[in-house]
């Protein structure tokens, strides 16, 4: 049930990002004279101070927000797989070094590090922002994957593969990796949530590319345009709600997967004992 609701939310936003701009073919940055209007028939979600249509911005912004989130999570997960599986498989000194590296990045506060890194970026394009977020977002996945690799590496099929002369790279990526796919999937989804939040935070601070419309940059302009004082709730509520909803969707899918693994977590209706 949780997975279905979560997946429904995700499909909705994925469609919005992929097909939305085709349906609403307008320039999200285009200004008009109709500034700061509340939701109406002409502008379903109202307009910004400069008369930009908020619905159009939300739809186009979803591409950037989701795009950066997914791109960054792909990079981070690839790195997490490499570090986690290699460390877990080889053990010994290699594992010690990689574990310490992972734990260091787990403890260091991510957002301040992202802000500092972004501060040094000469150009803050979509790709460089995604990389900066990935730098801080891989450690959790690596830790989980290392733990799982430790439990898998002594299993018979791995021993058999090793005995039949397969090299370590092949054992890691063709024997162990496929078994860990469900774990990789959940850690990927969690990383996407973190990356979307980080991108939104960075854009909100005005430290990402402000010339592209994203949910975070919408919030940046809403705050700087005094939307709070004017009472233009339609300007800042939708982008934040979208971020929170997509995060909820991803979390629901993840929790659903957890419950399949650990049935005790399920919310069951406890039948009352008959008196």
């Amino acid at each position, binding site marked *: 049930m949780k997975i279905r609701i979560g997946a429904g939310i995700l499909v909705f936003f994925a469609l919005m990002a992929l097909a939305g701009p085709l349906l609403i073919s307008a320039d999200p940055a285009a200004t008009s004279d109709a500034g700061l209007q509340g939701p109406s028939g002409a502008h379903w979600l109202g307009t910004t101070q400069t008369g930009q249509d908020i619905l159009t911005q939300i739809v186009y912004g979803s591409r950037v927000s989701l795009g950066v989130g997914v791109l960054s999570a792909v990079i981070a997960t690839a790195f997490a797989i490499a570090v986690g599986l290699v460390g877990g498989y080889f053990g010994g000194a290699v594992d010690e070094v990689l574990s310490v590296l992972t*734990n260091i990045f787990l403890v260091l506060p991510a957002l301040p590090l992202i*802000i500092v890194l972004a501060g040094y970026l000469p150009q803050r394009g979509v790709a460089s922002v995604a990389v900066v977020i990935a730098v801080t977002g891989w450690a959790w996945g690596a830790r989980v994957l290392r733990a799982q690799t430790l439990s898998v590496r002594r299993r018979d099929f791995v021993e058999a593969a090793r005995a039949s002369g397969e090299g370590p790279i092949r054992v890691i990526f063709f024997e162990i990796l496929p078994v860990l796919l469900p774990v990789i999937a959940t850690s990927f989804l969690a990383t996407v949530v973190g990356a979307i939040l980080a991108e939104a935070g960075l854009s909100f601070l005005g430290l990402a590319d402000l010339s592209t419309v994203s949910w975070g940059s919408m919030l940046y302009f809403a705050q700087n345009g005094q939307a709070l004082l004017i009472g233009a709730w339609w300007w800042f509520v939708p982008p934040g709600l979208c971020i929170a909803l997509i995060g909820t969707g991803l979390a629901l899918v993840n929790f659903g997967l957890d419950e399949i693994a650990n049935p005790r977590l399920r919310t069951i209706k406890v039948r009352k004992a008959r008196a």
Partner: protein
Amino acid sequence: MRFLARRLGFYLLTAWAAVTLNFLIPRLMPGDPVDLLVARLKGNVDPAAVEAMKKAFGISDAGLWTQYVDYLGNLFRGELGRSITFFPTEVSTVIADSLPWTIGLVGVATLISYVVGTSLGVLMAWKRGTWLDGVLPAATFLHAVPYFWVALVLVFVFGSTLQWFPGSRAYGLEVTPGVTGDFLASVAYHATLPAVTIVVASMADRILGMRNVMVTTLGEDYVVMAEAKGLTSRRVMWAYAARNAILPNITSFALSLGFVVGGSVLTEIVFSYPGIGSMLLKGVENEDFPLMQGIFLVISLAVLVANLLADLAYVLLDPRTRQ
């Protein structure tokens, strides 16, 4: 004690890593900070000033190793350089002025969030299958809500619309700082919305985390045994189940601290709270690299100290670590 010694070693290593990262980032990033500054000033700087700035940043033609040793030496003497935004104030002074605000705000808010969130998690696991399950979807939603958006909504509703609480600054213009009742009341009044933001945004993780561990603990034999002995359900819930479930919860809490601190940075910025988060943004906006780096270092060290405290709590609660 071996446990604590190991952890202490790890934190020292992490502190060293943070220091080294701080040293390496400006040197690995394309272009050096001084060149960036000169470019921003469109070349209207005389070469002597550029030299002086390079010296202030510790960027020289000397080898990377010599620079690193100089950098470490300066750090040990507590020298973080001078801030460009607040020239000629020392970065350490800027940090010393803003840090108490952040520690007060984030400390209190995190404590409230931890106590309330954990207790709610315990209750929700205990009363599984009742109306309390309705909190779950709400917690899942709050778990994904950006801190700064919660802050914006709170400012909008309670600040500008209802005007119950101030939406910016740390104390009113009418009071003078000092240990007076008026001043402290004003500080508490101004800290309400930022603190509520941090509590609301960070509590969901504690609820969900505690509930999940607690639910697993409730299936353990010693809980069934306690119930079979006829102990009161309150005693079973807190003294048997929650007491054991709290251990993994402390670990996950320590790991989430970095995230809470990051969220607090954003929260401070929304409320123009004069803490370290607002200073960090000022530093980044003005390309004030010494300030940025100093603040990153202080935040990292603060998170490490908080982690160490969480470990101490762990040792107090879990006799197995004291062997």
